[in-house]
C-alpha cells in the first residue's frame, strides 16, 4: 500500500514538476487573475474551470468486466485532456466606469489580447490579455481499482504531496464504485454497469475543487479488444481564495471565488486493450467541452 501511495504521489509530483514555465511565467497567471473583480474573473476563468472539472471527471469509464465474486486489483496512470476551442477563448465583460457599460467580447485566460475600449478624452481601457496558449488542457491522475464483491468494484484516486520549499501541499482523494448490472439481465448483448464517483483536490489553503458523477456504462469485447462507452452526469466546483488588488480594493479585500464547471452531461466512447496484466484504454467524451483520456494500467 505504501508503494502505491508513493507511486500516486510521484505521478502527481511529476506532473507538477513537468511544467516547464519560468518562475516569472508562473506568477503571470496568478497575477492576471488577481487583478480581476469577481464579475469579470468568472468569465475570464470559466473555460479553465470547465476544463479542469471535465478532466477530473474523465478516465472513470472502463470495460465492464466485474464478476459476481472475484479478485481484481489494478493500478493506473490516466492522462486526460480537455480540448480548448475557439468558444473557450472569448467571453463578455463590462469595462469599469466611466467606460460604456455595454458588455464587450474579450479574451479568456486561453484567449489572445484583451479588447481595448475607448472612453472620454481619448482614454482607453484594456481587458486582461489571455495568458495561456494551448489546444489541450492536460492532467495526469493516479487511480486504483479493487474488487469484486457482488459484482461491485471500488475505484480510488489518491495522491498526497507534502509541502516542499515553495510548493504547497497537494491532496487528491477520490472514491467510487462500479456495479455490474448485466448480472441481473444476462440476455442483453452488452455488459452494463452503473458507477458513481466523488473526488476532492486541495492545493494549500488557496484552492480546492470537488467533483461528483454518476454514469451508465456499457461494453463488449472482441478477443483482447474492448469497446466501451456510456453516458455520465457530472458536477464540478472550484473554490479560489485570494486578495483583490484591482479598482476599489482595500488592504483586506478578500475574494472568495466559487465557480462551477459547465459540463453536466457527457457521452463517452472508448477502446481498450487487455494484455493479461497490462491494460490500455483510450476514450473521448463529448459534452459542453470535449475531453480525451488514455490510461495505462497494471494488474488483474
Amino acid at each position: 500500500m505504501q508503494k502505491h501511495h508513493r507511486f500516486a504521489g510521484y505521478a502527481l509530483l511529476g506532473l507538477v514538476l513537468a511544467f516547464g514555465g519560468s518562475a516569472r511565467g508562473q506568477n503571470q497567471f496568478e497575477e492576471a487573475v488577481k487583478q480581476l473583480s469577481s464579475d469579470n474573473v468568472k468569465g475570464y476563468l470559466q473555460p479553465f474551470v470547465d476544463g479542469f472539472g471535465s478532466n477530473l471527471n474523465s478516465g472513470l469509464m472502463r470495460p465492464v468486466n466485474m464478476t459476481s465474486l472475484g479478485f481484481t486489483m489494478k493500478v493506473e496512470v490516466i492522462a486526460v485532456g480537455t480540448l480548448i476551442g475557439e468558444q473557450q477563448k472569448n467571453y463578455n465583460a463590462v469595462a469599469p466606469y466611466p467606460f460604456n457599460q455595454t458588455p464587450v467580447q474579450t479574451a479568456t485566460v486561453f484567449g489572445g489580447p484583451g479588447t481595448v475600449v475607448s472612453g472620454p478624452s481619448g482614454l482607453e481601457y484594456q481587458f486582461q490579455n489571455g495568458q495561456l496558449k494551448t489546444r489541450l488542457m492536460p492532467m495526469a491522475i493516479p487511480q486504483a481499482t479493487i474488487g469484486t464483491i457482488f459484482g461491485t468494484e471500488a475505484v480510488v484516486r489518491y495522491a498526497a504531496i507534502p509541502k516542499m520549499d515553495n510548493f504547497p501541499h497537494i491532496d487528491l482523494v477520490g472514491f467510487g464504485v462500479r456495479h455490474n448490472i448485466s448480472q441481473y439481465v444476462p440476455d442483453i448483448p452488452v455488459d452494463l454497469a452503473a458507477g458513481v464517483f466523488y473526488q476532492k483536490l486541495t492545493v494549500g489553503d488557496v484552492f480546492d475543487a470537488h467533483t461528483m458523477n454518476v454514469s451508465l456504462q456499457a461494453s463488449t469485447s472482441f478477443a483482447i479488444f474492448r469497446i466501451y462507452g456510456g453516458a455520465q452526469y457530472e458536477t464540478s466546483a472550484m473554490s479560489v481564495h485570494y486578495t483583490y488588488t484591482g479598482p476599489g480594493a482595500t488592504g483586506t479585500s478578500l475574494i472568495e471565488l466559487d465557480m462551477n464547471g459547465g459540463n453536466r452531461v457527457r457521452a463517452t466512447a472508448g477502446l481498450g486493450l487487455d494484455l493479461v496484466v497490462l491494460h490500455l484504454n483510450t476514450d473521448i467524451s463529448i459534452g459542453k467541452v470535449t475531453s480525451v483520456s488514455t490510461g495505462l494500467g497494471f494488474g488483474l
Partner: protein
Amino acid sequence: MKRWAIVALVAAVAALFSGCEFTNSPLLVEGAFVNSAFRVDQDGLPANTPFGTVATVHLNDVLQNVNNVADSIKIYNISVTIDSVTGATATSTPISGIASIDGNPLFSLNNVALSALHTEHSIFDPSIAGCTFNAIGVQYLVHSLRQNPPPNVTVAVLGSSSASALHFTLHVKIYTQIYTSP
C-alpha cells in the same frame, strides 16, 4: 497576498498546465491608487472668499504594488469625492472651483453641492451637473505617466462658495493600468 499563497495557486496551475505555453501578451496590472486629499477649513469669512490648497502627488506610487517590469502606464479614470463635511457647513452648500495639475486645468466645479459628490464620481461622469473635466489637464497627466519614471506633480484646488463657513475634504483619485513585460 502571502507569497506562499501566491505560489500555491500558481502550483495548482502548474500542475494542470504541464506542457502548456504562456503567451507573449503583456500582463495588465492595476496600478496602486494615487489619492490626494485637500482639506478646506474656513470660518467667519465673507461669502465668496476664495480658498486654495495644493499637494504634491508622487505619480511613481502607481508602481508600488507591481512586481514585474513596467513597460507603460495608462490612466483610465480620475475620480473626485467630497466628504468629512463638518462644523456649520451644510452639505447642500454649493462650491465652484478648479483643480489643476502643474497649472493645467484638470476639472472644474460650477455651483456643485457638496452632497452631490459625497460618493465617488468620475470627473468624466456627465450626470453631475456643473462638474466638467478639462482635456488639457487629462492629457498632461497622460503624458506625465508616459515618462520613466513618472514625475511628481503639483495638484492645486482653488475655489469659492457663497457660504461663510466651509469645512470639507476633497479627494482626487487616479486609476491606472500598468503594462508589464511578459
